């Protein structure tokens, strides 16, 4: 797709030289939101659609979104996965309106136009009319009226989709260094342990920034400090892709004796506030390293999470200029035994809409969204770690990755 052809143009001008100041308008402006749909979500970006293991059988499908656009992902008779815009070529109804299921074909409920599992139009009800009257004329070509197909890539079981032919192959999109972290965490076939959905009263970008902002973690999520989850012995860092669009923030334990390699219990720093039950903080070192926490973002809206043994992929869906929805898909490995299943349920108390170390992310964006209205021409500032967009070996007290997001946003948006 030629970007120039879809660019509707904009009056918006980025108000500063770099990305260390962000105008509040980007969180409140409907025109920019509309432009994001075309230039960013339907531009040269990879978007998480679903997991390979969610649609194991031919005919299995799942509904999802890229930005505002409804998408259906389906496995066909040959075992291949296809993704299409979930919109009938005729009147534009959803062809698929149940969130998941198994079908032989897609049949639009409105006028019964049917499509095969690759999105090809296979039938038009009364296409030949009734008793020689009505129906389609000869100029109608079935081949020209299929469902709009989305390019996909299966990345270690994560099905990614893009509208654009210009989007580079996924590994080139995020870079080898960040690809290595996906390989580090998702080492075996996955299974889904459940889903959460959380509605944020804020523009989608405020949540993306929150994920890239490792500076806030121990400050907003007081649970970390109160219950001694983050300890001074932990080191970590931030990796950025060459493009600066994507990031990885991680922490790891320094000292683990041989005796407790398999399991290390975390004790509270303060006796007053110790956890009565520490099972949820137990960490089975299943990945062969000492990394306790890794949050990886794939521009624009995908987050891959490893917090102790809580694995998840998070998908952010914009729901208008001042609302967004986060879908959490909670993961385990297919070969987890009953003890491991139970441990993952315990540790998942930390994350999700009711998670001890994540719930605050649900309200803080709303606080900014409300305050933004004070003056949308004013700007937020991102001074931590200077103005550069560089990886960080030791300190996570930097907003480099957030600035990297804005670099990507400006490049996609052409502003």
């Amino acid at each position: 797709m030629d970007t120039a052809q879809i660019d509707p143009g904009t009056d918006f001008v980025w108000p500063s030289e770099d990305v260390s100041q962000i105008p509040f308008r980007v969180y409140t402006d409907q025109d920019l939101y509309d432009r994001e749909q075309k230039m960013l979500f339907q531009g040269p970006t990879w978007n998480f659609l679903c997991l390979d293991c969610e649609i194991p059988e031919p005919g299995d499908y799942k509904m999802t979104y890229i930005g505002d656009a409804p998408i259906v992902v389906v496995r066909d008779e040959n075992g291949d996965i296809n993704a299409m815009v979930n919109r009938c070529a005729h009147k534009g109804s959803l062809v698929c309106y149940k969130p998941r299921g198994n079908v032989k074909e897609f049949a639009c409920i409105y006028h019964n136009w049917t499509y095969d599992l690759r999105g090809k139009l296979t039938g038009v009800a009364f296409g030949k009319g009734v008793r020689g009257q009505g129906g389609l004329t000869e100029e109608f070509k079935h081949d020209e009226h299929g469902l709009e197909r989305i390019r996909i890539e299966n990345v270690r079981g994560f099905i990614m989709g893009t509208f654009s032919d210009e989007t580079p192959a996924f590994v080139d999109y995020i870079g080898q260094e960040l690809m290595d972290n996906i390989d580090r965490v998702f080492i075996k076939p996955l299974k889904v342990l459940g889903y959460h959905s959380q509605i944020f009263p804020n523009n989608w970008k405020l949540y993306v920034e929150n994920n890239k902002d490792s500076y806030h973690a121990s400050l907003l999520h007081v649970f970390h400090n109160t219950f001694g989850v983050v300890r001074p012995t932990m080191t970590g860092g931030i990796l950025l892709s060459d493009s600066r669009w994507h990031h990885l923030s991680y922490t790891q334990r320094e000292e683990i004796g041989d005796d407790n390699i398999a399991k290390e219990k975390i004790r509270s720093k303060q006796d007053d506030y110790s956890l009565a039950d520490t099972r949820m903080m137990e960490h089975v070192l299943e990945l062969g390293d000492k990394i306790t926490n890794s949050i990886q973002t794939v521009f624009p809206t995908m987050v891959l999470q490893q917090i102790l043994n809580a694995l998840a992929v998070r998908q952010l869906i914009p729901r208008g200029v001042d609302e967004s929805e986060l879908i959490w898909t909670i993961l385990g490995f297919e070969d987890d035994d009953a003890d491991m299943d139970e441990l993952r349920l315990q540790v998942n108390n930390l994350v999700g809409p009711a998670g001890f170390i994540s719930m605050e992310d649900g309200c803080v964006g709303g606080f900014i969204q409300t305050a933004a209205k004070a003056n949308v021409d004013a700007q937020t500032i991102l001074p931590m770690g200077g103005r550069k967009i560089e990886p960080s070996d030791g300190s996570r007290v930097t907003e480099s990755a957030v600035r990297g997001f804005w670099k990507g946003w400006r490049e996609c948006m052409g502003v």
Partner: protein
Amino acid sequence: MTTTTDLDRDLAMRLRIDALVADYIHCIDEDRLEEWPDYFTADGRYKVITRENYDLGLPVALIYCDGRGMFEDRISALRTANIYEPHVYCHMVSALKILDSSGPDIKTQSNFTVTRTMSEGDMMTFLCGKVFDTVTEVDGELKFKERTVILDSRRIDTLLVIPV
């Protein structure tokens, strides 16, 4: 044939369970959350799970407590660590149905809605769904041995911090 004695016994049990549930929801709605763990047995289990996960047979819950310590941790975190805009719940519970009263544990189901009112006044129907309870008698008092709260909607508005 149902005898008067059976009816009396059934009615008495319903009244006792009704009183337990009433005490439980008033405890939450009146922010006496430190008392919340007392409504469960020491090995009590509590789950808040979406209907989506429950119907798909998927185990992950929004809140999962297994044993008294985890109940206490939920409340101490809410009081000392978690940050959220102040709000209160109002629980409405109805349609209590006794599923099984043949053994020492009584199994029930009921419906509920929770309205949430924020400190600034915004009010919404926050949660609604079904509760499956296993109630048992400990030292003459009824307690929840197991409480599974199934939320009709998959979507949680903003965050979930106060138990249901």
